[in-house]
């Protein structure tokens, strides 16, 4: 799923903004009714989209009985953090969190570096076979991830990387869609600055590292968002690349919680607490770069 969704989001993240002209509209009775209807619809939709997350947090703070008896209310009658205590003090949850964090940070850093390196070469450097390499990148983007479950396992097993950090990280370290995004970006910025540095005697890597990369900040932010979100939320790759409990990531761990391995009974507060915590890092990232992602005409950052 990664490549298609990341392309969607990349398209969104790199969209230029045009502000539609505002016009004064006179208020007639028909218009007032229309406006009331519009806002009522929007309010209802907003509730449908937000309520699930509110009830999730609320339920994670309820006792098990209350979660079963009164699932709808947003305010726990007996407020308890038992679910969180259990997760952090009496389960492997902290280990999962650390594993996910390590993998996500390494993958994000690696992708930013390798993807921009390749994107720069494909956009700017002239070498034989460049067209073939780019065609390969585009072809790879079209391969759906779920089709790769068995193949990835086969190769990791063959290379002796199965059930290791290397096996978890290496295959995620490069992302074809990212190369594509960076190449497009580098083609959109003028080459004159680099030419100047080159004439001053700087080597190709130096030009790339200290002149081109700093200019590519908006595109790099896009890559960071996509890589972080992609690797933090990745599940299928970790299922086929690891089996030992020490290498379990949050997605794999919480999925095992969901199918009821740690629990008797429904344990909804516990499961929902785990799901809520694993949402936090992505949510934080989302709110940091919100204006960039949402691209609202009130305050868009130029891409």
């Amino acid at each position, binding site marked *: 799923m990664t490549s298609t969704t990341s392309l969607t989001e990349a398209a969104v993240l790199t969209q230029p903004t045009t502000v539609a002209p505002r016009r004064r509209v006179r208020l007639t009775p028909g218009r007032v009714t229309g406006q009331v209807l519009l806002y009522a619809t929007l309010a209802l939709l907003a509730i449908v989209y937000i309520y699930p997350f509110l009830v999730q947090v609320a339920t994670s703070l309820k006792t098990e009985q209350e979660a079963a008896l009164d699932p709808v209310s947003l305010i726990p009658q007996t407020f308890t953090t038992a679910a969180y205590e259990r997760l952090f003090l009496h389960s492997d949850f902290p280990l999962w969190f650390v594993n996910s964090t390590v993998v996500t940070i390494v993958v994000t850093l690696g992708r930013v570096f390798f993807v921009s390196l390749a994107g720069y070469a494909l956009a700017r450097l002239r070498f034989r076979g460049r067209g073939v390499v780019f065609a390969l990148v585009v072809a790879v983007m079209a391969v759906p991830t779920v089709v790769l479950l068995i193949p990835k396992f086969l190769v990791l097993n063959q290379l002796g990387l199965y059930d290791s950090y290397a096996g978890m990280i290496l295959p995620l370290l490069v992302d074809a869609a990212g190369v594509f995004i960076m190449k497009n970006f580098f083609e959109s910025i003028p080459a004159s600055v680099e030419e100047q540095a080159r004439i001053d005697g700087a080597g190709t890597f130096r030009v790339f590292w200290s002149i081109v990369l700093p200019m590519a900040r908006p595109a790099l932010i896009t890559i960071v968002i996509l890589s972080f979100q992609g690797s933090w939320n990745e599940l299928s790759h970790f299922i086929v690349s690891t089996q030992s409990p020490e290498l379990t990531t949050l997605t794999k761990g919480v999925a095992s919680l969901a199918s009821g391995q740690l629990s008797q009974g429904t344990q909804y507060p516990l499961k929902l607490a785990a799901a809520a915590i694993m949402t936090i890092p992505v949510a934080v990232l989302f709110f940091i770069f919100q204006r960039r*992602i949402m691209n609202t005409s009130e305050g868009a950052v130029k891409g």
Partner: protein
Amino acid sequence: MTSTVAPVATPTPPSSPRRSRSRGTRRGEATAGWLFVLPVILILGTFLLIPVLMALWVSFSDWTGRGSPLSPSVGFVGLDNYAAITTEGGLPTRDFGIALRNNAWYVLLVVPLQTILALTLAVLVSRRILRGRGFLRTAFYFPSVTSSVAITVLWLFLFSFAGPVNAIIGSLGGDGPNWFNDPRGIVHVALGKVGLSAGPDWLTGGQFLGISGWEWLAGPSVAMSALVLMAVFTTSGTFMLLFIAALQNIGYELTEAGMMDGANGWQRFRHITLPQLRPTLFTVITLGLIGCWQVFDQIYTGTQGGPAKTTVTPAYLSYTAAFQNQNWGIGAAIAFILFLIIIVFTLLQRWVLRDRPVSRRRIRAYQPRTARTRLPAEEATR
């Protein structure tokens, strides 16, 4: 995808004097170029191309998961694995048929629903005068950034028998089903309501992929319907952003002209805005189709294919066949058929939404006189 992308690959050739000079100063350029793309080639090659070729071999072999699939003891069995899931009519065929049916219904519901909802949301929050626009966009997009595992856990709670959804249905006077434990197809349930509980003979008799026509038409199970709602909930935000971006790029002039001509809101949307959204619509539907045939995380986390196999999808079946039942050849064969399905749908979609050529006479009718006379000249300069 290649065709749309290819033109970008060839950059405009720089002017000749610069080129000759830079050739002199950039001697190491080719080496640097290869060094820069080397990590990407190595990783994509090792973890994408080689694996696909290996899996293709496994799909034609009798490998049982022990040792290396490339060892000489593994035999070539031709199309046996493919035959086992398509023509032999045994349990693997039936399982594959069920998985295809489940996923087909899923696609049939999710793609139109998510497209319409995303478009509706985009149009609503793109109004030029709207309070709380940023807040609304955030609210609608937020489900898209959360992980499929976290959302599935939340969904299992929301749609549990005594969960919030049923509580709300109950307070409205309804009677909610036992969502994730209900294997009944919703088409069968609806037909049952009007007294039709068994299919006619011509439907129950014939079989395709080990399943009768009546079973094919069962509709998604109640459990699958809950997953359909989840998919719509989580993807509508992403696609809404695509539509918003497209709406922003549409010039306001045409809409204004429509207003002058007295077109009402719906007419302006239907005949002015919608045709201009065509490329985005194509993108959204294609991405939706591709995504929907890849349902895996939700099934692995939530239902494990139950109840009564009604949420098994080809992707999940491929996984269980290989990793749990050690039928690696069959698992790989399913994956490649799935690959084929996804490609076919992409091509089909492209063909359906292609720009049909307008006849010359009709084009002329739309061109002002001056433009028409200038046309041959323009042609010549190209």
